[in-house]
């Protein structure tokens, strides 16, 4: 059933080839421009948050790929308030399929693959250029990091989406978390002031998506509050974040139906 749900969306979008190519291309271009911004900064200083250009590229590529995975699966969840207002949500509630799965597949946006491709290419290239010297453990981490990061971002997306059961027009509020988290994750956490760094490590675990794993992969020392070993925390944090996200989501649905909570 999951295959039919997602398959139908993929087919629908591939049927408009030119539009798909243009959308995916523009998404790719966007993430390249975002990186150029970092490049300009690094043209003036040798290191940024203690990282060289190539090392920053690892962080950026990893964060972009992770964000693209989450954006692909849950990117449109910020439109939940529109569903609530238009009554579309009611048609989803009378189907025998979990709501979250329906929303995820309903809004699957393949154009976001553009961002993923650029991110993953940048990540792999930069890892090689930065002299990544894998042990079996770091090799596994290198492969899983984009997926785990995608899991962390997805959980954030779902939480932001769930909040819209309480907020009348929560789209902007939700975007602040998700896109804001993306911006933070693309930069070395060391450049942020301590309170910000703490917020985006312990509350919104954006720095654990890309920066912390990069420290492990390239064997670099971490700044205060983000020690190198935090790079291994991705998976447990992703699982924890998902548990919280699902609880919040359930509470949101219960609030919507008026079943308490």
């Amino acid at each position: 059933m999951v295959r039919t749900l997602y398959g139908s969306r993929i087919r629908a979008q591939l049927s408009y080839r030119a539009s798909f190519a243009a959308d995916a291309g523009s998404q790719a271009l966007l993430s390249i421009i975002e990186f150029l911004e970092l490049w300009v900064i690094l043209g003036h200083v040798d290191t940024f948050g203690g990282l060289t250009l190539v090392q920053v590229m690892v962080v950026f590529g990893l964060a972009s790929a992770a964000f693209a995975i989450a954006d692909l699966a849950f990117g449109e969840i910020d439109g939940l308030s529109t569903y609530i207002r238009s009554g579309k949500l009611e048609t989803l509630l009378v189907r025998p399929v979990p709501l979250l799965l329906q929303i995820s597949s309903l809004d699957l946006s393949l154009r976001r693959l553009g961002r993923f491709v650029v991110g993953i290419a940048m990540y792999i290239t930069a890892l090689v250029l930065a002299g990544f010297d894998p042990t079996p453990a770091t090799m596994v981490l290198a492969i899983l990091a984009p997926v785990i990061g995608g899991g962390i971002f997805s959980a954030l997306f779902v939480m932001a989406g769930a909040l819209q059961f309480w907020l009348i027009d929560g789209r902007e509020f939700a975007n602040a978390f998700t896109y804001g988290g993306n911006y933070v994750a693309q930069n070395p956490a060391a450049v942020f002031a301590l309170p910000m760094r703490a917020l985006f490590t312990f509350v919104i675990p954006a720095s654990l998506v890309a920066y912390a794993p990069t420290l492990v992969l390239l064997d670099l020392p971490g700044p205060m509050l983000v020690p190198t070993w935090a790079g291994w925390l991705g998976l447990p944090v992703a699982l924890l974040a998902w548990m919280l996200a699902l609880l919040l989501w359930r509470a949101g649905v219960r609030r919507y139906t008026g079943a308490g909570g």
Partner: protein
Amino acid sequence: MTWAIDLQNITREFTVRRPRRVVRAVDDLTLQVADGEAVGFVGANGAGKSTTIKMLTGILMPTRGTVRVLGRRPVPERRHLAREIGVVFGQRSQLWWDLPLRDSFAILGSMHRLAPSAQAARLARLVEGLDLAPFLDQPVRQLSLGQRMRGEVAAALLHSPRLVVLDEPTIGLDMISKEGLRRFLVEDRAERGTTLLLTTHDMADVERLCERIVVVSDGRTAYDGTLAGLRDSLRTPRELVVDLAAPLGVLELPEGAQTVAVEAGGIRHRIRFHAAEHSAAALLARITAQAEVADLSMAEPAIEDLVREIFARRP
């Protein structure tokens, strides 16, 4: 007796902000619908119909009272219940707008985990009965309202639900589309013995599809019985409009029927009568004895008038 729908004293309140107050959309409503029954659920806008339907389908929890649908509690068992009920919200599409209609059915079939052979057979029946073949491969966004609505009904009936809930299924449709839809709903119910709950503003829907009518007003049941019984008990007059071939000043009418207006210089006569006293056919025979009738129409009292009448008569 097993009830398909069993609502006991349900109340649903909403809190409105600014100014903060509690609105009672459904107020101590009790309704039981037997397995296989067809019930027209009517009332003016804001009478509580939609809220009641949301409570039946597990979208909303009642503030007070108990709800059982097909023996289940709708909100906690929403996804189980969804396998056994089919819902059409007339003003909201459940189809995938950018996919061909056929693909929407395929997705819904897999959501309901229908066996491929059973799904194919059921779909063939729906395609035939609702005449979907000409546009089955068109994207939903290209369909006309009438075509889309037939698609919506097919989507709700695909998994052969035991209970069908239709919320304004004929809204905005032309006469031919309405008739086609009604004919199929009657057939399908005769074949499968489904329970039907229908909300509508169109009394012809109720007449064609339902044995029983429940009128709600201000969240309460105002009437529960047959449509004919409702008309009789209220003695709401029907109106016959005849256009004569040649002008005539006065028509002789039997006792109880009266001319309320003569228009167009004696061509058009509006005659009011009570169904309990005269049949339209007998009245017409009396008129044709006096003048040649070129055209005629009948106006039935609108549901809003009936509801108003019900309340006007309450002590």
